[in-house]
Structures are given as structure tokens and as C-alpha cells.
């Protein structure tokens, strides 16, 4: 699964710490998601998308291998 969290976060001018605080998770989790080491749950994905004010499809995208 491809994710564009880092690009979208920078575009919306959020820092990792700010986003983590709003979504109520740790900064480590944000880093793990951005580096593709952790796939978030649907609930967390929706929360992040809502915070960044973008549709979920703009954050995560299925790859052919998925």
C-alpha cells in the first residue's frame, strides 16, 4: 500500500508532533506510517484524513501487488 501522508502533511503545513497531538497518537506512530513500517487502522486513517481535511483516497492507495 502506498501512502502520501508525509507529502500531504507538509502540504497542509502540519508538523509530525502537531498531527500526532491532534489525532491523539505518538509521534513514533506518525513516523512509522510515513516510512511504511506500520499500516494504520481504518479508524486512525479516517481521523488523519479528517484532520488534514482531505479524502482518504488521497492519503492511501492500493498497489497492484496488494
Amino acid at each position, binding site marked *: 500500500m502506498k501512502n502520501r501522508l508525509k507529502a500531504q502533511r507538509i502540504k497542509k503545513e502540519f508538523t509530525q508532533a502537531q498531527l500526532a497531538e491532534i489525532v*491523539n*497518537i*505518538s509521534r*513514533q*506512530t506518525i*513516523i*512509522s506510517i510515513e*516510512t511504511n513500517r506500520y499500516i*494504520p*487502522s481504518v479508524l486512525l486513517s479516517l481521523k488523519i484524513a479528517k484532520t488534514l481535511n482531505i479524502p482518504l483516497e488521497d492519503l492511501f492507495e492500493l498497489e497492484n501487488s496488494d
Partner: protein
Amino acid sequence: MRMYANGLHHSIIDFSFGKCDNDSLESHYHLVNVIIGILSFFSFLGGIYFVAFSKERHEDEMVKQVRLESFQFAALVQMISIIISCICIFIFGELGEGALMLFFIGEIFLFWLCFICRLNYILHIQLKNEE
């Protein structure tokens, strides 16, 4: 504890060592050792539970997943250890009662120690990558 010929215990703990004969003194020491051993075991196990189930500063879903994976890892290590140990016991001969007890106690500790070590290692690695 005083032991009588009919095997009945006269009192729970009697610290008058000077009055005991050798057999009762030995059984007295044995009882004290067993009580200390049991207390140590459960105290240590209680301490391990506190360490294992203490929450992280940010207990989010990723930490919960790492916790779950650590449980699986610890269970796997314990199972492999039990299988290997059983094969060794089968090949090299039977264990005495005390050694068998130590083996089972070791297996209980092995599970929790593996769990704690893996959980903290993964969280430490993530923290290191963050810096």
C-alpha cells in the same frame, strides 16, 4: 516445624532450634526454604506483571500491535524451548523432582522475559529511528 513419628505437625513454625533434633531441624530449614522460594517466585512474577502491563506514555494502536506481536513471539519461543527441552530430557534421561520444578518455573519466566525484552527492544528501535 516439629515433626512427630505419626507425621503430624505440632506447630506451624517453631524457632526453638536448640530444642530440635537433627531430623526436625532439617525439616524446619526445608520448610523455611520452601516458603522463601514460593514468596520469591510470586513476588518476582508479580513484578514482571507490573513491568509487562505498564502502559507506555502514548499507548496507541501501534504499541498495542507491538504488544500483541511480542506475545506471539514469547509464546513461540516458549513452545520451541519446551519441545527442545523435552527432547533433551528424553535423550539424556529423566529429571529429578526438583529439577523438573525448576524447569517449569524457568519456562514461566522465559515467556514473560521474552515478551518484555522484545516489546522494549522494538519500542527502543522506533525511538532510535525517530532521532
